[in-house]
């Protein structure tokens, strides 16, 4: 019976069995949905295989610091932003912590913003870590790892650089050592504010 229109999406009226075959009315819809889903999976796969984000618009987020301060990335247009993912249990993070803080103090007056995102951690130890390295830039927990997911981090430490136009301008995986951080910040600071890089 159904052989005549095999494989060809048929309009709803073709359905010979209004009873159990009710699914049939949406044959093209069903194919469309499945193909759409597959297309989305393909896209997701390509994206997942491409590793952490290093370019494009920086995913926006609002972070509430351990000290109650709040920061929203999109409100920082015109400023160079360094987003650092860390955790108190992560030894390589300790290697870069003092350098990060030192650099932040050096650039604070030049409108550079540092944001520390504490990934999969416990508050008490995180606070002890912040105390230990006397970190003064804003640091807060990544609740539900939302921010980490948006930036597709693979682990900690990872550091993302956001330019004045809010575009991601690279990611650094692993602990930062002088003068890497200074160089990157200088480079972004040197750009005029109106630049909208691709």
């Amino acid at each position: 019976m159904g052989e005549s229109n095999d494989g060809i999406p048929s309009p709803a009226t073709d359905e010979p069995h209004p009873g159990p075959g009710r699914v049939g009315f949406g044959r093209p819809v069903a194919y469309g949905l499945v193909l759409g889903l597959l297309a989305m999976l393909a896209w997701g796969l390509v994206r997942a295989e491409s590793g952490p984000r290093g370019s494009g618009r920086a995913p926006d987020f609002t972070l509430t610091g351990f000290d109650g301060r709040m920061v929203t990335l999109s409100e920082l247009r015109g400023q160079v932003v360094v987003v650092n993912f860390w955790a108190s249990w992560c030894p390589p993070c300790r290697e870069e912590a003092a350098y990060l803080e030192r650099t932040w103090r050096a650039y604070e007056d030049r409108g550079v913003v540092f944001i520390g995102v504490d990934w999969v951690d416990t508050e008490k130890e995180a606070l002890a870590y912040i105390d230990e390295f006397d970190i003064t830039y804003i640091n807060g927990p990544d609740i539900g790892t939302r921010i980490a997911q948006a930036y597709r981090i693979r682990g900690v430490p990872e550091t993302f650089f956001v330019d004045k136009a809010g575009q991601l301008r690279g990611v650094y995986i692993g602990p930062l050592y002088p003068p890497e951080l200074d160089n990157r910040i200088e480079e972004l600071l040197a750009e005029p504010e109106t630049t909208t890089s691709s």
Partner: protein
Amino acid sequence: MLNDVGFLALVIGFGLSVYASAAAAWGGWKGRSTWVASARNAACLVFPVLTVSVVALVAALLRLDFRLAYVADVSSQAMSPFLRVTALWGGQQGSILFWAWLMAGFVCAAVLRPWRDNRELLPWVIAVAMLTTAFFVGLSVFITNPFERYWLLPGAQDLTRALFAPRGAMPYVPSEGDGLNPLLRHFGMIAHPPTTYLGFTGFVIPFAFAIAALIARKGQEDGWIRATRRWTLVAWMFLSVGLILGGRWAYDVLGWGGFWGWDPVENAMLMPWLTGTAFLHSVMITEKRGMLKVWGMILIILTYSLSLFGTFITRTGVIGSVHAFAKSALGPAFFVFIGLTFLGSMSLLFRRLPDLRTEHELEGLLSRETAFLLQNLLFLAITFAVFWGTVFPMISELVTGTKITVGPPYFKQVTGPFFFALLVLMGLAPLLAWRRHGLRSLARTAAPLLVASLVLTAGWAYVHRLHPAAWAGLWLVSFASVAVLAEFGKGVQARMETRRETPALAFVRLVGRNRRRYGGYLVHLGVLMIALAFVGDAYFKQETQDTLRVGEQLAIGGYRLVFEDLRAYPGTDGREIVEAQASLYRGGKFLAALAPRRDYFVVQEQPVTVPAVYATLAEDVYVLLVGWEGTGYGSTTFKVYLNPFINWAWLGGGAIVLGVLLSVFPGSRAYAEASYRLRSRRLEGAETAGEST
């Protein structure tokens, strides 16, 4: 050598499964039984051949043969032999081989059965099941081979993994392995993958039968359903147990005091469970009344596809997750296979739709059939809601460029009412007669249950005066439980009256002679126990956190926790342990000594928080060691959760297993047939089916 034997066996297994699939399809298409017989032999051989491969890998793990990259990745000298064996499924390569091996085992068992009936399905069952097996064995051979070794290329800094020596490469054998991820060293996580895989792979059998029935144009008969009933139940049971073990692991290891977080991984597993549950119920109607045939097909195809889909999205990192495997060709291969499965089964179903005629139309608005149809719809609605919430981050990123993750509140609010309706239905459905049921007679039978459940709820409400929102949940569980228990009661009473049996004897015989039915009710009770745990989690959970010095205490819900001591010592399996000693009191009475810990795994640089739990049926006192200022007598921080009813979830899991075992246990044929005599065996056509029976 053993490793080479293992690899060789894997290759042979792949060849055999490809051959079995092709030969069966050819034999089925051309009607050549010799080809089918040959395919059957090959299909049965795949399992023993893969067993050689698995044994070789396990032996390598036990010997700590670090020449194999996989062994170096997942085992270490500090791990006990037991943990080394479980490392078989502790990493990507091993788990794919393990998966393929389990699937081959299922297929072998299914193909070996006598096949007195449904012979025309055999070739297509082999073809479909072996194609799937070949895919997984193929992944293992070509993409994630567990027998790969490490090589050092001249001038390169990083190691290369390969089966055979690349040109100019030096073999590299590490002196110590990385060891199994510490978070996975828990009985829940050791048993969770095997049970989950058994569930997922088990559904291959009903799926293969369903596809075979469609190809062989036997979808209008229920032979495939009868043949796979036990497979489906067992697969479903394993999937359920896998979910519960995963929950238990999260509860014990992840240290957030809960057992279900609507994480993509959990959802990935929940979706096939939901459709699988709907399928189980739907085919009962097909068997009994010859209805809902298309539903059965759709649901089994969905269940199988969602198992693949779930594995895909979580394992390839398409949706962020702790389960994601490293970047490899696995993703694209999986993607192609999923695409073919989705589109292939869907177009086959569309072609065969005219075959799947219903033998009866719905006769009354209120009947057992409509209850089943409604529950199918509810299960699908929940599946869709969960699906939407799981893929929404991808959709939002695609559309708006920003990844928006929907959290537990979305899932709770959207699925909550559907689950609520399902539980009401669970209580009502057994009261409904087949074909049609009067509203008045339903009201008569349901009224006593309603009254009993309201009385129970009033009792609950008195105890939990402070949580009016929870009353509905408690009523729900009471109502459905009373309804299920009443079914047992009615059956026992009937036997006592007609056969003058003692209550105990009547109960045993009742259950023994209607295993399928009462096994099902027992499963329902198990589900209700889990529902109770969810109600407890949603409404009665309490938590507190405090920093204490030795001798100080904190209070939560009538309990007092007194901090006694904190010490550090080296533990087994390469960990450093910091353990607090605390005493738990209630109303001045000492209950238990609790020792929450923090284990630090030195090699992996990973801390694991091990809660201390005082467990009763009423509630758990769940204590976490959150932080401390030096060992000794500094201040130490504890987080304490009070989790009411949570142990009912684990008990419910036990009830589900018992119930399924009861209902799949082979009984006398006569009884099984007697209970299904209702169904009209005549298949003259849909026209007469409406009035007949």
